[in-house]
């Protein structure tokens, strides 16, 4: 008993000291807050995997004479934990910049801390319309819905679609999907015949689909993630609605096709990342990813991969005089960064400007629409 307790303490102490001892002083440290457990853990785990691929490649490339280290902290997509982690990162003088969080709400709560302390925060997914506007310290690597909405609006008008029904999930992001689409579409002469929000995880879309059909739109514009998207598309097919569906990059995920099967055929969407694209950097990322995963990477891990690389290239620019201030300035200067989600520049608010690809589902695969 005595021995085991002593051993246990020894192990605990060793475990606690190892990370501190293993890295030399001059390591550049980046914090990454993300959900590694809880309801959204699957996203956070993917981000971590993508970040590790980017970091390993970077450290092996010798772009910097010192290694870069990423410190991951699990926020469980809980604002309480997100804020606590933010305070922890700010306390660590070695940390010069932060990636994350996953959901907008946690990112926004943590952003209040980073704003006060003066630390650059780059989220791969925070889509809240006000996130990047919080302060000069916030950046994101996800296309805004203003951008996706206007591309989709123009695309539909080009196809001769004049009357559109809009449905989106009841989240900050869903709100921005509707606003981002409706404004340019109406400005260009289109008509919105029906708008509806649904709560995430809705099992039965049929009442919404029936109401939608009664308004006889030429097409439906949707703001959903793949889980809800799968349900919606299946029930559209069951009810034989026969209305073309347009969507955003959030629906872009192989699991959508898996869930919806045939019903996903002919879905139109905008995306920034297509794993089938033959560009060298895309194929390198997909190749590395496939070593440890069964499926090709989706949009979000690709955004995380690029976010990490954007941060790392800012570190290179700021080196050797890296401070939180100089790293922020280097991030803000990012122009045409060649990532797997297309070329990225930040505007004066820290919003990314990206090129969007038009895609559709054909024979069970996402293909680029020329």
């Amino acid at each position, binding site marked *: 008993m005595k021995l085991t307790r002593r051993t246990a303490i020894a192990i605990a102490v060793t475990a606690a000291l190892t990370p501190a001892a293993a890295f030399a002083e001059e390591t550049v440290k980046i914090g990454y807050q993300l959900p590694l457990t809880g309801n959204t853990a699957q996203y956070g785990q993917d981000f971590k995997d993508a970040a590790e691929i980017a970091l390993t490649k970077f450290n092996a490339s010798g772009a910097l004479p010192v290694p870069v280290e990423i410190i991951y902290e699990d926020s469980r997509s809980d604002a309480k*934990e997100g804020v606590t982690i933010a305070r922890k990162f700010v306390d660590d003088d070695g940390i010069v910049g932060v990636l994350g969080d996953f959901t907008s*709400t946690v990112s926004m709560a943590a952003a209040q801390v980073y704003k006060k302390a003066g630390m650059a925060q780059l989220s791969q997914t925070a889509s809240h319309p006000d996130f990047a506007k919080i302060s000069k310290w916030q950046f994101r690597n996800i296309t805004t819905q203003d951008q996706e909405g206007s591309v989709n609006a123009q695309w539909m008008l080009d196809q001769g679609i004049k009357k559109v029904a809009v449905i989106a999930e009841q989240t900050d992001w869903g709100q921005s999907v509707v606003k981002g689409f409706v404004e340019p579409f109406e400005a260009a002469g289109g008509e919105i015949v029906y708008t509806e929000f649904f709560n995430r995880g809705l099992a039965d879309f049929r009442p919404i689909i029936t109401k939608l059909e009664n308004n006889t739109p030429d097409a439906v514009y949707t703001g959903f993630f793949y889980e809800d998207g799968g349900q919606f598309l299946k029930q559209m097919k069951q009810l034989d609605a026969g209305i073309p569906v347009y969507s955003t990059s959030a629906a872009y995920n192989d699991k959508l096709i898996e869930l919806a099967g045939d019903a996903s055929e002919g879905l139109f969407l905008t995306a920034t990342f297509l794993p089938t694209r033959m560009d060298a950097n895309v194929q390198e990322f997909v190749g590395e990813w496939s070593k440890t995963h069964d499926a090709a990477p989706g949009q979000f891990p690709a955004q995380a991969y690029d976010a990490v690389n954007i941060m790392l290239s800012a570190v290179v620019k700021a080196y050797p005089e890296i401070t939180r201030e100089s790293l922020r300035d280097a991030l803000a200067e990012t122009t045409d960064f060649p990532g797997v989600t297309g070329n990225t520049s930040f505007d004066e608010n820290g919003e990314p400007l990206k090129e969007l690809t038009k895609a559709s589902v054909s024979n069970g695969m996402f293909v680029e629409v020329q």
Partner: protein
Amino acid sequence: MSKSRLIKTGLVLAAFAVVPAVLVGFDKGYYYQIATLAAIFMLLAASLHLVTGVAGLLQLGHAAFYGVGAYVAAILGADHGVGFTVGLPLAGLSAAAIAFLVALPTMRLMSIYFAVATLAIGQMLYLVFLNWVDLTNGPNGVMLFSGINLFGIEIESDLGIYYVVAAVVAVSILVLNRLSHSYYGNALRSLREDDQCASAMGINVTVMKIQAFVISSFFAGIAGALWAYTTGYISPNDFHFSQSILILTMVVVGGLGSLPGVLIGALLLILLPEALRSVGDIRNIIVGLVMFGSILFLPKGLFGEVSALNFARRLLGANWSNDEGQKGIGWK
């Protein structure tokens, strides 16, 4: 100095001298954040203690009243320029008012039916936060730019914020302590044990239940306002059902009916996950095991009700009468 005064002084010193001294010593924002968060959740657990622990009403929607307080404070602050000194009591009162309205039809429900009704109320309020976009800004949440402003003095330092939160929480807990250890608290306990018997003794069961529910929600609203003022951004997710369960767990693990117990429970469930951060993903499992173990081996809680009552009586200066013949049963 009597033992009771010693304990009281000790607790006050711990909250207002020892903890701040340690915080200043470390000078880490991280520790300030945890201390503030722990204080807020101690108040949440203490307020739920009154209705679930003392009065025995299983309340599954406590986080919703926490949310009402947070939203009132944040919306008043962000859109109408109402500061901390007015916003804080208004947040509590609004939560109490809504609790009163929903209590009227539900208080006659018994046991499990009442629990399900509070579950529904919690969910309804959550959906209101989420879907009443014009008022609550829906899923976008509310950003509150003004911090804590006390009579014209902007409290910005971490230490100052801790002191304000600790003071509000300490006063609230003091009130809850007096409520649960008094004739009033005993009357509530009698409802929990046998409400028909209590009613036969002349206690107005429904009125008492409504009062306990409203008071409990008032303090949950105060806790919500503290969360809004200290974080600067709130969204519906902060007040989800899972938070109600977290608070309920604090009460059960700490000890149903025991105020010191639920405070320890709240501290444990806020501090333990943070202390275990370094072990990685399995920390949730360890926290779960600790909870499971404490229910299994300490079903009355970490600090059970009987010990808590003894402790409280001693604090109030009353002791068991220990006369020789055991004739004078009860308190001196």
